[in-house]
């Protein structure tokens, strides 16, 4: 049988010539604003302070530095920062993630002091000798920015100090204010994010009756100083962006140790109930026959015992305790070893008396309300002035609110949790570089909207978050 075979040779060439995707190119545009001389004013958040210290790499990724980098793409000028030539910190050393051993001999991954040599006195307050665009001063409150002498080294020795060592380093003369340093450079654009410390100092020292005499800046004072700042900054026609104050009680510093964090087993719970029964009998013997703490400890999670500054009876201080309410906040700085091994938050076995978490580590309901009310009042002032002066309004309060339930960028989910949340650095208050990029993008959104600009956003994932050790 003869089989015919038909060969078919096919050369199939799919050559794609004009196949460059015709996607639209991003065209940057400065709109009605001029970024040639950009000045950033603010506090530690603006300075690039992170992980409990001001150090080089975190400064170089501060939100104003990221902003300036993006401004540069639409005609922005150079942005000089008072960089600390040290990765270990200025004054204080920074925190890193590492292993530490607790009082029970258990080792765990937690923030620890980095080994290193932070720049100390007197080198740390040596004036840097050049003009800077980033005038963020760690610790600054709104009134500090207008205070002449905030950079006077003699003020450091006053009690309380009238100067700020970070600004002493930056000030061009002893009589300079932060605002004057800004105006000297005749800015065309400014950002101002100030006011956090006007409540934060109070909050991080535990609110009322705190040991560091920190109080909340009264609304009228805030308003006066803030308005003066804005009037001066805009006096030469500069445009700018004002950021408001987030609800600081939502940051990890106040939300990592839960009020209901006292974990007990059956035996420990019974022992605590007995111990407080003894304490009650002692108070009853002081002429209060019907006294009861009303505690009932059980196996599982219980509310911590805290010092009660409103305890109604004149008994010895150690006995004036109550249990924390679920919505009350325990500070990140509360000594963990005292909780784990000395009975802080439950009962001091050694000295046989109640051991409430000291007030300086607790924000109670009233203190939280004081903070939130002040922030609300400040934010009204900031918003009003932004509207009045046609300045971009950066709603950082809204950003933090959204972050509570998680915001996703490029496959990463950011939230307000300590360490794993990615926004806040190891001090639980200041931003990671990724957090700074998120904030910078929020500024850019507001500036683009207000000034009809098209400033490119920063790529958040190009900045580091928290690094875990090997």
């Amino acid at each position, binding site marked *: 049988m003869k089989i015919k075979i038909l060969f078919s*040779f096919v050369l199939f060439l799919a050559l794609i010539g004009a196949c460059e995707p015709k996607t639209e190119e991003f065209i940057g545009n400065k709109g009605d604003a001029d970024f040639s001389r950009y000045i950033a004013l603010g506090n530690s958040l603006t300075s690039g302070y992170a992980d409990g210290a001001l150090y080089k790499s975190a400064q170089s990724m501060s939100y104003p530095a990221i902003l300036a980098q993006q401004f540069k793409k639409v005609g922005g000028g150079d942005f000089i920062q008072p960089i600390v030539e040290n990765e270990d910190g200025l004054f204080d050393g920074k925190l890193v993630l590492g292993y530490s051993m607790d009082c029970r001999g258990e080792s765990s991954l937690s923030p620890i002091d980095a080994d290193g040599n932070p720049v100390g006195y007197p080198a740390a307050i040596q004036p840097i000798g050049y003009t800077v665009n980033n005038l963020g001063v760690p610790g600054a409150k709104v009134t500090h920015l207008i205070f002449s002498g905030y950079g006077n080294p003699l003020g450091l020795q006053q009690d309380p100090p009238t100067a700020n060592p970070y600004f002493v380093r930056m000030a061009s003369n002893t009589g300079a204010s932060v605002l004057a340093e800004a105006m000297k450079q005749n800015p065309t654009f400014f950002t101002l994010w100030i006011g956090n410390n006007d409540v934060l100092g109070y909050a991080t020292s535990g609110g009322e009756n705190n040991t560091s005499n920190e109080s909340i800046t009264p609304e009228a004072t805030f308003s006066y100083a803030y308005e003066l700042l804005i009037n001066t900054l805009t006096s030469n026609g500069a445009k700018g962006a004002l950021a408001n104050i987030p609800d600081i009680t939502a940051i990890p510093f106040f939300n990592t140790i839960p009020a209901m964090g006292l974990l007990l087993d059956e035996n420990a719970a019974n022992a605590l109930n007995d111990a407080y029964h003894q304490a009650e009998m002692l108070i009853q013997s002081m002429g209060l026959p019907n006294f009861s703490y009303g505690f009932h400890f059980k196996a599982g999670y219980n509310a911590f015992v805290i010092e009660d500054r409103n305890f109604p009876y004149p008994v010895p201080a150690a006995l004036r305790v109550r249990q924390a309410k679920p919505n009350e906040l325990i500070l990140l700085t509360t000594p963990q070893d005292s909780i784990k091994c000395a009975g802080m938050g439950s009962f001091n076995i050694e000295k046989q008396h109640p051991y409430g978490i000291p007030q300086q580590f607790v924000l109670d309901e009233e203190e939280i309300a004081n903070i939130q009310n002040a922030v609300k009042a400040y934010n009204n002032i900031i918003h009003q002035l932004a509207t009045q002066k046609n300045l971009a309004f950066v709603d950082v309060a809204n950003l933090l609110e959204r972050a509570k339930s998680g915001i996703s960028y490029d496959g990463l989910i950011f939230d307000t949790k300590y360490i794993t949340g990615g926004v806040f650095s190891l001090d639980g208050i200041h931003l990671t570089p990724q957090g700074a990029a998120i904030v910078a993008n929020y500024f850019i959104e507001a500036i683009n909207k207000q000034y009809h600009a098209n400033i490119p956003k920063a790529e958040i*994932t190009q900045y580091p978050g928290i690094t875990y050790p090997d």
Partner: protein
Amino acid sequence: MKKISLIVILAIMNCSGLFAGGYQVRLQGARQSGMGLTGTSLISGASDIFYNPGSLSFLSNKFEFTAGGNLVFSSVEFRSLESDYIAKTDNPASTPFFFYGAGKISNNWAAGLGIYTPYGSKAQWPEDWSGRYLIQNIALSSIYFQPTLSYQITDNLSLGAGLVWVIGSVDLQKALPYNEHSYVQLNGSATAFGFNIGVLFKPTQTIHIGVDYRSKIEISLEDGDAEFHLPSSITSIIPTNNKFSSSLPLPANLDFGISWQVSQRLLLSLEMNWVMWNCYDTLTFTFAQSGELLNNKNPRLYNNTVIPRAGLEYQIQSKLKIRTGIYYDDSPANDDYFSPETVTLNTLGFTFGLTYHPIENLNIDLSFVQLMGME
């Protein structure tokens, strides 16, 4: 008579090309490729196993084999809408291939086997690119095995059906945010069944109508391997060796085609392909251990697409046929969600082809596809 065709397909692409419509590749035969990738109403031989099994019983040769491979170089560029950031993939060449063999069993019956790779995608992004936490690189592949039977009911009506058995696999790597070198490597494969049925109807001598339906096939990966590369400080929370499950849908296609032999020399072919991309709703990864930390859902919300195609074939002289065609392939991707695993670009395709028959028993086929990416 036997017909053996060997097809060398060289698809050289500098942007997106054949994967324009999500991750589907439709280049399965030289003639169809020249005619705008129409084929549902054509009688083209063994490759009808893919385009329309209903046409297979009209096979003109006793046996016919056709095989081919594509060498696809594709590159994807990512441009952010909100910034000047640009990243470009450096993709390895992918090699979709096909083999079709068919034979007449009787006057009315034909049988065949198709082995082909209609879905696949490869993407390899730069190591430091912004989307590395979504994807660093990915290779999706599927091999279809389709035994097929076709029966000619009357002179002008024929049915065909094929059982499709698929081996699908995924190999994916993405960065993790624990330190600069953290990443996870996922790979797994699975098999699934589907079908391909078609009908060819000739209402007149010169008009052919074809309808073909290729079912959706869900590749369900169970027990895939997940290898985590992590700093040691986090391995107590996330195990380094884990298992994952995921599912990748290969969408159903409904094709409707009509062709008209206008004259002895001229054949026109019109076609619509409905691709049911809406099955690609979310890409979900579920892990066996530490699921609460690792499980993730990536919304895709692809849209169904309709691809219009037109093609013609013209016999210039007894030894030469030329072909041309055009089609428009809408991207199924949802604008609100970035899917870095595939190219998602609207494309306009122009196709050209010819068959030269210089001597008995030899055909030389040339095809050419020109794609234009559209915004």
